């Protein structure tokens, strides 16, 4: 906890035991106060980044500048700190601030066990007080902190944030609103090493910020003040440990207001939970690429030491908010895009033009290439091409090239892609009303096929297949009066019975298609067929695309385990007894190799498969999802589908899935500058070699996580470059290349690495890594690996970057202070630690979902958002501030919405006001609320409107429709809900946040000792 050197008792004197944990938590929370930063230096983006980070960094900096002895017990040589020109590591100490010398701490509140160095923008002690409510509860914290406020009660805020000044407090506002243009140049040339995260470091040079004027009044908080604290803690106060909510809120407040300009190398973008705009000034938007760290260790030794995975989460076709322009399309005519002759990297802003513009040096492999005459342009005095700003490929981070015929399969421009709808018409599908519902929906949905830009109608052709244990193809040629059905029963050796008339233009064949969709439910109304096939269905679709010589997407609507005699026949192998055994991995592995083989063929044809499952029982998602997974498709699962209950969810998902823009037959290649290279890839795709990510289809939601390893030394000067090139066929059949470039910094100091990390991205990587691991290793081993890695990361920090302190103190880097809580969420997720109610299918389903999630999705998936409904004024239009996902945070007089991107709960406290119940549910009392309700009545009152509006807006944020479940306190369903309160101990044995943190501390200590 507090100062290790100080008089205070070390919070973790020995091996932490439960008792000790409890003891720890008894400590009164402390508030750290930091030094001030000259705000003039704060870039707007930087501000938004992580206000909290600044705090400790600047504090340390300040102290250092003042010539004091090193305050932090950093193991690293002081020189290294110095060399960073005062950019002190934004190391965080949990409570281990040197007391004596620490001027920065303004308040005497000792931090209990833990503190993180604060990244928050420096602010004055006085500025930090939580709103008057002052309660220990988080929600109170979420109120805006006003600059003028003083730190409130000791226990008010979370440790991490304790010191974080309210963003508003920062005058930088004035700066931020100012023109941003000049900034990047200002910084980069002068202090290449400085990254925005290190704003704090500017403090000293620029002089104190206004708000920090009173430098360290509260500094004593660190440790020194803790001296007086009475007793060793008995219990770790949840409020005293880093709160995700607080971090999110702070980032939102600090960085959500100004655009994030990508001009500067190695900037850490705002958190994914923050709304911000991006201005592309040469690096790809974080919507396309996010990295675990924006400062890469120069050597592999360093990287190994730190154990921080170097990974980028790439979403090449990410959708952008309407305010941001989608990438420009560059047409280089017949010569095609300009590339480096050696490494084949595409022209990008980092390419260095030399010899007056006649040649350019590749920024990736240093090869010197001639500039083709038609591309020649003079250079200006800075060595920049005169036309740099006229050419997207010379000035932007993301852009597209029109591909030439050389980039096409068989040297032929592709035909427009096709969608094939393949509908299970077995007894189950008919009985649940699925077929009727689907056919009805398709009639109108076909008008909304994705189209390119301003195209009047979609170029995509459609085809239809129904199946049970045989397949029915339909000829819907426009010239026919009636559709024709062609049955193929040779499922063992699938083929496509027709070419002409199978894939048609919707408008031309509308009458026939409508007639078909009308007749399908009738034709099979009396079916008794319960057996289905699966592999032959996909094969048929793929063969159809092959015959039509186009790429495309199959929409498969499937209900049951394919037990009919056919390739890919499956048996029910669900066996819960395998859980926690060495054989558990088999539950995640496909039953037969047929699926992989098929997937390979699909990828070769550019056939992407989206699977909609409607199982009543085990369907072996692990096997069925292989093809969607490898072809870049999606899996949707609606267990026990009933039209009344699930219609909206299914239709909404279907609509979105059909309408979303997709790239087909794609190949993605990630090039890097010399020194690192992409070594591992995670996501929904197929790879036939070690470098090319092949995606039969890729939509705006699909993400590929790429891990990098060193193969040489990196250079601090030149940094590290990534170029992600995606070759794909647009939905109009145009072959294109999308290029994303990103420049990262390189560091020789571990501290720089830790200061420029992004925990959300790290978690994204680690979750994917672990979720893939369960395929091959026992789950326990996977969990242990995660814990070990996390402990190593933190231990390395402690050892190398933090100031020396008592071993009993847990010190977390500012940027990673949420790592333990998030990692715990990953560890107790359904895949890694299944509860009794989680089916094997659910686990497999979640496993594959996570594989292609982006950072925002993993963030909320692992740490769900819990929004109180009645706390904030009813008029407020913004989302209410979230509370921490713990039962303790729930007030039984309130209602909460909980969402994790897949599920949405409305929890109603038992003593919620009657009026509220009335206005929301239209019933008179709590007891009359139907538990498990999935639709709120439409009532004309502000509360009802607000809640429903909120639900709608939550749904709009997610790529899948979340079905609402109303849960009453103390009701049976509450168990389900509690599963998502991830800070608590879970029923399946998952540790609570507090417990896990203690455990992590123990691990770190073991590593250090």
């Amino acid at each position, binding site marked *: 906890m507090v100062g290790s050197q100080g008089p205070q008792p070390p919070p973790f004197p020995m091996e932490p035991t439960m008792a000790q944990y409890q003891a720890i938590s008894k400590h009164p929370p402390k508030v750290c106060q930091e030094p001030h930063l000259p705000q003039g230096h704060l870039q707007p983006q930087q501000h938004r980044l992580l206000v909290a980070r600044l705090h400790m960094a600047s504090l340390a900096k300040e102290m250092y500048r003042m010539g004091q002895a090193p305050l932090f017990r950093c193991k690293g040589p002081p020189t290294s700190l110095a060399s960073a020109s005062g950019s002190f590591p934004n190391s965080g100490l949990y409570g281990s601030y040197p007391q004596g010398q620490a001027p920065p701490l303004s308040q005497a509140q000792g931090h209990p066990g833990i503190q993180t160095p604060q990244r928050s923008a420096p602010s004055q002690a006085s500025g930090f007080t939580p709103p008057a409510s002052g309660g220990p509860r988080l929600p109170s914290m979420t109120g805006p902190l006003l600059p003028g406020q003083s730190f409130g009660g000791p226990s008010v805020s979370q440790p991490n944030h304790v010191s974080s000044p309210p963003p508003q407090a920062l005058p930088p506002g004035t700066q931020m609103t100012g023109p941003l243009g000049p900034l990047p140049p200002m910084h980069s040339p002068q202090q290449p090493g400085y990254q925005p995260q290190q704003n704090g470091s500017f403090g000293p040079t620029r002089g104190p910020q206004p708000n920090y004027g009173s430098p360290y009044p509260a500094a004593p908080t660190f440790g020194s003040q803790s001296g007086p604290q009475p007793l060793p803690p008995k219990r770790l106060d949840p409020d005293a440990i880093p709160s995700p909510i607080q971090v999110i809120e702070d980032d939102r407040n600090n960085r959500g207001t100004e655009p994030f300009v990508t001009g500067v190398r190695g900037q850490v973008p705002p958190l994914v939970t923050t709304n911000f705009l991006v201005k592309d000034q040469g690096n790809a938007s974080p919507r396309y690429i996010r990295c675990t760290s924006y400062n890469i260790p120069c050597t592999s030794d360093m990287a190994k030491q730190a154990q921080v995975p170097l990974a980028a989460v790439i979403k090449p076709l990410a959708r952008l908010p309407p305010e941001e322009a989608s990438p420009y399309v560059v047409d280089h005519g017949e010569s095609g895009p300009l590339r480096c002759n050696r490494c084949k990297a595409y022209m990008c802003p980092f390419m260095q033009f030399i010899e007056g513009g006649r040649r350019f040096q590749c920024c990736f492999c240093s090869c010197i290439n001639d500039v083709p005459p038609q591309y020649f342009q003079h250079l200006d005095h800075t060595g920049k091409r005169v036309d740099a700003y006229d050419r997207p490929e010379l000035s932007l981070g993301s852009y597209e090239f029109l591909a030439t015929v050389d980039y096409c399969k068989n040297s032929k421009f592709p035909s427009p892609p096709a969608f094939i709808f393949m509908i299970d018409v077995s007894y189950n599908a008919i009985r649940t009303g699925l077929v009727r519902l689907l056919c009805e929906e398709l009639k109108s949905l076909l008008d909304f096929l994705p189209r390119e830009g301003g195209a009047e109608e979609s170029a995509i052709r459609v085809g239809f297949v129904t199946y049970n244990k045989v397949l029915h193809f339909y000829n819907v040629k426009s010239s026919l009066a009636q559709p024709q*059905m062609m*049955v193929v029963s*040779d499922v063992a050796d699938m083929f496509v019975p027709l070419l002409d008339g199978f894939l048609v233009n919707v408008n031309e064949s509308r009458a026939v298609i409508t007639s078909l969709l009308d007749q399908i439910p009738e034709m099979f109304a009396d079916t008794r067929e319960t057996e289905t096939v699966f592999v032959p269905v996909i094969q048929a679709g793929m063969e159809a695309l092959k015959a039509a010589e186009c790429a495309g997407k199959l929409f498969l609507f499937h209900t049951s385990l394919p037990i009919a005699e056919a390739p890919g026949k499956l048996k029910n192998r669900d066996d819960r007894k395998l859980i926690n055994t060495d054989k558990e991995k088999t539950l995640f592995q496909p039953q037969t190799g047929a699926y992989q083989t098929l997937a390979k063929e699909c990828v070769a044809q550019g056939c992407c498969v989206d699977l909609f499952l409607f199982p009543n029982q085990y369907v072996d998602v692990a096997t069925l999802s292989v093809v969607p997974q490898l072809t870049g498709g999606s899996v949707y699962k609606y267990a026990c589908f009933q039209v009344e209950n699930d219609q909206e969810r299914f239709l909404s998902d279907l609509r979105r899935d059909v309408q979303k823009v997709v790239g087909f037959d794609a190949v993605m290649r990630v090039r890097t500058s010399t020194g690192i290279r992409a070594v591992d890839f995670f996501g929904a795709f197929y790879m036939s070699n070690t470098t090319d990510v092949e995606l039969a289809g890729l939509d705006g939601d699909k993400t590929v996580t790429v891990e990098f390893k060193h193969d040489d030394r990196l250079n601090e000067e030149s940094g590290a470059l990534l170029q992600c090139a995606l070759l794909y066929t647009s939905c109009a059949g145009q072959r294109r290349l999308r290029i994303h470039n990103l420049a990262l910094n390189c560091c020789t100091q571990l501290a720089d690495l830790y200061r420029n990390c992004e925990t959300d991205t790290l978690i994204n990587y680690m979750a994917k890594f672990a979720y893939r691991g369960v395929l091959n290793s026992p789950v326990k081993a996977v969990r242990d690996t995660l814990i070990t890695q996390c402990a190593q990361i933190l231990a390395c920090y402690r050892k190398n970057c933090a100031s020396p302190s008592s071993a009993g103190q847990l010190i977390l880097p500012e940027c990673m202070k949420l790592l333990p809580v998030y990692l715990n969420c990953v560890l107790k997720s359904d895949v890694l630690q299944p509860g009794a109610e989680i089916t094997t299918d659910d686990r497999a389903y979640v496993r594959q979902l996570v594989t292609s999630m982006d950072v925002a999705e993993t963030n909320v998936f692992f740490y769900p958002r819990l929004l109180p409904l009645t706390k904030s004024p009813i008029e407020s239009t913004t989302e209410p501030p979230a509370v921490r996902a713990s039962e303790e945070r729930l007030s039984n007089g309130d209602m909460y919405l909980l969402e994790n991107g897949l599920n949405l709960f409305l929890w109603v406290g038992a003593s919620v006001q009657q009026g509220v119940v009335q206005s929301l549910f239209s019933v008179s009392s709590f007891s009359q609320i139907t538990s498990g309700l999935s639709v709120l009545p439409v009532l004309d009152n502000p509360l009802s409107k607000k809640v429903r509006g909120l639900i709608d807006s939550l749904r709009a944020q997610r790529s899948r429709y979340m079905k609402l479940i109303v849960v009453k306190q103390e009701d049976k369903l509450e168990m389900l809900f509690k599963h998502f309160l991830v800070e608590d101990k879970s029923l399946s044995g998952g540790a609570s946040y507090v417990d896990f943190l203690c455990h992590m501390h123990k691990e770190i200590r073991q590593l250090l000792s």
Partner: protein
Amino acid sequence: MATYLEFIQQNEERDGVRFSWNVWPSSRLEATRMVVPLACLLTPLKERPDLPPVQYEPVLCSRPTCKAVLNPLCQVDYRAKLWACNFCFQRNQFPPAYGGISEVNQPAELMPQFSTIEYMIQEDDLQALKESLQMSLSLLPPDALVGLITFGRMVQVHELSCEGISKSYVFRGTKDLTAKQIQDMLGLTKPAMPMQQARPVQPQEHPFASTRFLQPVHKIDMNLTDLLGELQRDPWPVTQGKRPLRSTGVALSIAVGLLEGTFPNTGARIMLFTGGPPTQGPGMVVGDELKIPIRSWHDIEKDNARFMKKATKHYEMLANRTAANGHCIDIYACALDQTGLLEMKCCANLTGGYMVMGDSFNTSLFKQTFQRIFTKDFNGDFRMAFGATLDVKTSRELKIAGAIGPCVSLNVKGPCVSENELGVGGTSQWKICGLDPTSTLGIYFEVVNQHNAPIPQGGRGAIQFVTHYQHSSTQRRIRVTTIARNWADVQSQLRHIEAAFDQEAAAVLMARLGVFRAESEEGPDVLRWLDRQLIRLCQKFGQYNKEDPTSFRLSDSFSLYPQFMFHLRRSPFLQVFNNSPDESSYYRHHFARQDLTQSLIMIQPILYSYSFHGPPEPVLLDSSSILADRILLMDTFFQIVIYLGETIAQWRKAGYQDMPEYENFKHLLQAPLDDAQEILQARFPMPRYINTEHGGSQARFLLSKVNPSQTHNNLYAWGQETGAPILTDDVSLQVFMDHLKKLAVSSAC
């Protein structure tokens, strides 16, 4: 010998039987010396308007190995109500209230099942075919079951019962399937339902399933018409330089499997309409590369026909299966190039199906031929019968050596089966899956009576032909023909035997043997064999002085025989030169099933001459008959050629026929046309009709047939100016005869 001629004709009229010998040599040794085997041409369903079916079960001999049918040749003891079988001499009791009766037909009660499977091709003249098929629907009896299978790259079995969406089951054209698989895939196999003892099984389940594909015409007339109307060309693109993919082999296999599963042992026709050769899958005859032409005789001789053996095997397998089920396969192949009849021939040959070859479905040749299939007899029934079995019984002096015709062996090895096979032998029963009133089999016998066991004077040999068949009216019928001939001792009664020689029947029977051999042997070997037989016959029955060719004479009953053989040697049945393998197969197919008259026409075409000099007259099939002032009408069975002599052609060109004063010329021109029309009306398949004149390119049809008595080699030697020289090196009949005589009298031979 007029009496014998009459006798022969009478017998043919009455029984549809013509024997090569009408008095039989009484010992085995003698019989073999007769050269031409004892054999007969049997037309089982010879139309007998005067023969009403009898509504009784036939009375059978009670000996299990015999079971001959009571016939007029049996000795009947009316008082004892006994009859003695004339084949095994078993004495049998009459059933109560039974009188002697010559022919018995007994209807069997069976479901009316007459089904047709129709196949379609994807060709440019698809339209014409569609019309023909639609027309054919109107000709079928309303309760006939029909189905439709179409094929191209894929094979589609159309479901006929559905409303709204038309439904078809599709099969890959490259994969052969077993009948079981086909039935599984078509959903025809009864679902293995758990036994429900207490409850009665729903009876509608099974018939329902099978009738999805086969429906009574009256029910799905509209459906099928629409379906045919909507048929399109095979939608799979055909790239330049490729043949369209045609999965004939699989399509046939599926049709066979479908019928096998649904209506085994019930009359059914599979009608294959194809516009080109099978190009993929089992039974493919040629690849889809256009630059590689389909196999020719030359390729076959050089063993260069890559797919032939495999394809033939495939179709043979199908044909045998079809035959086993009592169904028949028709092939209607219309294309300018070959369509693979050579490989597919067995389908029609073994099952008694029709084979029709034309240039296009849009020709009258096809259209009328096809229509003719559905003509009806005097009773209003189709002239077709199904699923016949022919059972032959002989008296003990005879054994059965084999049969040649549209039949397959049933492998019934009775006591009267000879060990020496001629044609399809080793059995006394054959299956004829499809037959019409003209279908004719050649049946060969062997006299087994030993030389030292003389037959008593006046003894008669007897043969009984029992034909079970399904009449087109769906009745089961049995036709029994029993014939008897006298035995004669060769030593003493050679004259009798000679006189009773039926040279026409003998020529056809020998020709069938020759053609049968030609299927498996080299052409020259067959010719040599035929020559040797002819020489031996001449040696045996000619009158001559040794080594004196000029003294050689043949009696009247043999006089035409050598001439038949001469033309047979030149016929397309034995000569493959200038014929494609498909054409050869086509000709041979018809030769093996037509009756005696038609067969003779095929062997030796008929030539009529029309002139101002008198009424039309048959003239010698000789180049000397080609005269300037004649019109010739030649009937080769497959072709009808009208040939205008040089002068006539000039006259016509000058337009004399349009001048009133030359009306007689007009009549002259018209006369052969009318006669040709008459032949065209009756003939099945419809012959190719050729109207040509002197110097016309089509005149080659005539010139290739006539005896080349005048050629460029001997034109002046003969010193006559009449006739037309033929440019050929073929020997003429005269040369042939000279050689024959020389060889016959030579003692060296």
